[in-house]
């Protein structure tokens, strides 16, 4: 087997890239290409010129089979849009948080309480994603912040394009904090950068203490964890110390809040943190 590409020797013949190997030519220069045409309107979208300057480099072959080097991330398209979203948000002084958790861990309840407590103090906006219904948007309405529901239909996560399409409308000038309530799912949303500044992983105390160990992708990617529904701890056989240990094992130094949006316990620390973030 060839050490460079793992090909079997038969394949090496078939593909015509016999040894010694031509070097790979990664050529992953991204060519950001600022588009200089005047944008009268103020959207973070890219007008669909997806200039993928990959320049795959081929190897000459006689039988029509060639190898080309790609070195392209499967998330490259999403990440390009996410980078534009982040630049759009940052240039307007908006801090964006992407809230990710299992269904039913209390994202919407936490946002209700958070919007109520920040009302009149900080201009907030909310984007909320679900497969269908605008139930969450209705729960979050009339709390002093623009709310936009995204129905993803069959998709188990929000992607950067979803956010791009609603940003100018949901985050008017003066907005300081944007909360993105992702689709309830502990796996897929972790892979998709939306252009947020922070990923926030929620974990309710009705879930297992070892959930961070079971779902390390999210908990290693999120900068902040929030343990929710702490008012239920007395009723449950739930070990807080063990959960804290699991979080630190997966993500050493992770910033952790413990709160109950229902009783308000622990909300002060969360609100103070948000005010400092936006400051």
């Amino acid at each position: 087997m060839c050490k460079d590409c793992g090909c079997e020797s038969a394949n090496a013949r078939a593909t015509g890239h016999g040894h010694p190997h031509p070097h790979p030519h990664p050529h992953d220069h991204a060519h950001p290409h600022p588009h200089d045409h005047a944008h009268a309107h103020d959207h973070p979208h890219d007008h669909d010129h997806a200039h993928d300057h990959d320049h795959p480099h081929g190897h000459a072959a006689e039988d029509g089979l060639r190898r080309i080097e790609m070195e392209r991330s499967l998330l490259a398209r999403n990440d390009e849009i996410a980078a534009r979203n982040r630049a759009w948000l940052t240039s307007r002084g908006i801090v964006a948080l992407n809230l990710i958790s299992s269904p039913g861990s209390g994202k919407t309840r936490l946002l209700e309480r958070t919007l109520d407590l920040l009302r009149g103090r900080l201009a907030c906006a909310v984007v909320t994603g679900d497969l269908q219904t605008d139930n969450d948007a209705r729960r979050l309405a009339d709390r002093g912040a623009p709310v936009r529901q995204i129905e993803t239909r069959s998709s188990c996560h929000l992607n950067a394009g979803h956010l791009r399409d609603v940003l100018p409308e949901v985050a008017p000038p003066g907005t300081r904090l944007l909360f993105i309530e992702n689709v309830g799912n502990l796996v897929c949303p972790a892979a998709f950068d939306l252009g947020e500044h922070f990923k926030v992983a929620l974990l309710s105390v009705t879930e297992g203490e070892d959930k961070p160990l079971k779902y390390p992708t999210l908990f290693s990617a999120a900068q902040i964890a929030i343990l929710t529904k702490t008012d239920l701890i007395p009723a449950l056989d739930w070990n807080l110390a063990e959960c804290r240990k699991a979080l630190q094992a997966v993500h050493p130094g992770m910033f952790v809040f413990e709160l109950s949006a229902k009783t308000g316990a622990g909300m002060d620390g969360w609100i103070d943190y948000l005010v400092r973030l936006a400051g």
Partner: protein
Amino acid sequence: MHELSLAQSMVEDIVAAARREGADRIVRIRLVVGALSGVDADAFEFAFPVAAEGTPAAGADLRIREVPLAVHCRDCGATTSPDPLLCRCETCGSAAVDVTAGRELKVEALEIHVPVG
């Protein structure tokens, strides 16, 4: 669950790249999947034929190379591959580690068929 949308996005990218090279067909795809990428290789293999149907990538041989998590310890300098996926040095137990591998999710290379003449 999100493997299908990733497979669709990959197919768009590789078909575009292959066409730029004048290819009529993609023969083999070399994909790299890290342990922390959030992608399950089996689910991706299941999703790929659906995403590739009716495109020049249909029937291509999908080769997935899985990359284990690797962490480099700032305390003892060891590079270890903790399993399960904990961010902790397996040699000295320190949590002061940097992830050096395992987040990859990329197409490394394609093998394509270019009509002769």
